[in-house]
């Protein structure tokens, strides 16, 4: 397997656990360096081990960047803790080094968390993820296949949504000039969508049960999701990165 495919091929449950552990750990660090270094680390990690669509990644990062700047700005302006040395002041606003550090830390945290989420989302096949949750983490098959059915329904529901919108257009709904009227009109779309979704869900449940699905834990899987040394290696590398960033942040601040 080419090294560029490793992250895509990694066991989804393992990847999921590593991402959750990293997030929970990062939450305890309030210096700007730890999230910053981790953010850079994750980008490098993806560059080495995955075939990332950087264009898409960049686009996804745009709203994140806005959020981060928003955090930075509001934390500087409305900080509760105004102790520490004054870095600069302007028109009666003062910014202390404490304030500046917390703000930067929050902003980079947004970046680090998003980079990690995108790493997971962009390299994981949702079907494999659910199957892996069932196989490795003992998620109940009832829930797992419930999610799968929902996933299969998405395109059907989208198609139906379009159909209903078309029909409503005929009655002069959805073509209103005012934005707020259109938003209020969404309520009208939801009822027919829900009513058909409920019917469809019942049919799907019957079809599954008629094929012997009882929701019991299963013994044999046709497509077992493997857990191998490479998964361990990637997890260890990510954890080393995490610990390294924590230590570095602690030393640098």
């Amino acid at each position, binding site marked *: 397997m080419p090294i560029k495919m490793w992250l895509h091929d990694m066991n989804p449950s393992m990847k999921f656990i590593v991402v959750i552990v990293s997030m929970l750990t990062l939450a305890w660090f309030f210096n700007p360096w730890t999230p910053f270094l981790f953010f850079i680390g994750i980008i490098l990690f993806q560059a080495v081990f995955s075939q990332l669509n950087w264009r898409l990644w960049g686009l996804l990062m745009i709203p994140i960047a806005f959020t981060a700047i928003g955090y930075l700005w509001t934390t500087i302006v409305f900080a509760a803790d105004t102790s520490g040395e004054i870095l600069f002041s302007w028109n009666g606003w003062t910014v202390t080094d404490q304030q500046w550090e917390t703000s930067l830390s929050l902003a980079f945290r947004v970046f680090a968390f998003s980079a990690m989420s995108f790493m997971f989302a962009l390299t994981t096949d949702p079907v494999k993820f659910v199957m892996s949750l069932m196989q490795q983490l003992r998620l109940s098959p009832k829930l797992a296949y419930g999610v799968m059915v929902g996933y299969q329904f998405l395109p059907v529901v989208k198609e139906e949504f379009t159909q209903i919108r078309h029909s409503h257009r005929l*009655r002069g709904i959805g073509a209103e000039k005012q934005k707020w009227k259109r938003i209020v009109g969404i309520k009208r779309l939801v009822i027919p969508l829900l009513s058909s979704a409920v019917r*469809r869900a019942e049919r799907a449940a019957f*079809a599954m049960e008629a094929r012997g699905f009882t929701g*019991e834990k299963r013994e044999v899987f*046709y497509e077992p999701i493997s857990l191998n040394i490479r998964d361990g290696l990637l997890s260890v590398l990510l954890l080393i990165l995490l610990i390294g960033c924590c230590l570095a942040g602690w030393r640098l601040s």
Partner: protein
Amino acid sequence: MSNSIIDFNEVSFRFPEDLTPIFTGVSFSIDAGERIVLFGPSGCGKSTLLHLMNRLYPSNCDGILDGSITLFHKDAVSFKPGEINQKIATVFQDPESQFCMPTVEQEMAFTLENFGHISRLEMESRITNTLSTLGLTHLRKATIQTLSGGMKQRVATACALLMEPEVLLLDEPLAHLDPLTARQYVEWLNELQVSKSMTIVVVEHRLDLWGTFFTRAIHVSGSFLTEDNPVSSAVAFPKRSSSMEEEVIFEAHQISISINNQRLLQNISMQLHRGEIAVLAGPNGCGKSTFLKTICGIYNKSEGSINCVGHLPGYVPQSPEHLFVTQRVSDEIRFSNHSSNEQISDIMERLLLDEIQDAHPFSVSHGQKRRVVIGAMLADQRPVLLLDEPTSGQDESALLELFYLLDLQAKEGISILIVTHDMSFAKAIADTIYLMKDGELTGRFDTYHFWNQTALLSDHQLVAPVGDYSYAY
């Protein structure tokens, strides 16, 4: 010991929310190798019977069951959950909602995994064998969502046959297929039954597409009579005299439409006279619905012109509830506010909507929903009605109701354009037939000179109505 594998003895069944049982004292038995059809109108309880055979009922609906059901000489109650489904497999009517996995192979594996004791190697060989006996090997890695309705039904059948069941139950398997696809499916099923010698039980409200497939019919409504070798007969529609007048009230001229740089319709011209009923037919995906949506103003046309007396045509979608925007039937009719009070009460009366005027539009029956939509369109002062697949999945009485309803509207001077695959309905009601293929109109025919052109029909995925099939030459 008798050869029977399914025995119903004095069975009564009642849903917990109903006061009266859906059927009482039902007794019949089915022998191995038979081809049975449970026949009757919608809502007569035939699907319930089917669900009693595969043990989905009574446990899934808390229904109240009296009498005894014996499956394979054992009391049905004694089977563990999922156990009977290895012997009795089921295919349902809606091809869209009986799958839970993305690809055909994974879907089949899902069935095998359910039974818990099959090794991976065995799964592999069973999937390979089933697919090759059914001639579906090329679909193994296919994504189910991308398949046509007919193929989805075959995949669903393949999933059912994986367990090598002794009985195959089918719940209106043709309801969502066009006639030619349906006929091909029946032929395919026929070969399958011959080679596997299974028992097949089908729930169906129309027999005309099944030909001589069945060895026995059980009439579910009323008396539970059985009939050997049932012959399919088309729905008997009354004779209709045309109400077409000279005046042209709708004209589409050289309509073309492109959406996202894709040419969907090419130079379509059509005229409708006052009181005319026209049918538009053609294969799935050829642009029939797109055309309807274009001439009623949902889509914007790219080229061409539409001349219409008064308002644009009104559109009745296949699921009428898509058009509902209010909480009461009478508000639904009044919604657009284009008609006076007298006109509205006249419409309500003509369409028999008075009795349900305070009901929620979602809670009335399918036929009533359609009447509400038609009422709303008439109250919008729309002189032409466009109906998208109103016949799909309808039983005989629903078709007759639709027939009378449309005939009455035409007599009132409304023009009607119907998209349908049901050629016996088309034959009974249409003054004119338009054929469409690949986004172009391929011809306009009046009903007298149309039905014997078998090649032309099958070229458009259509099947001539059964009654005339034999003496059309």
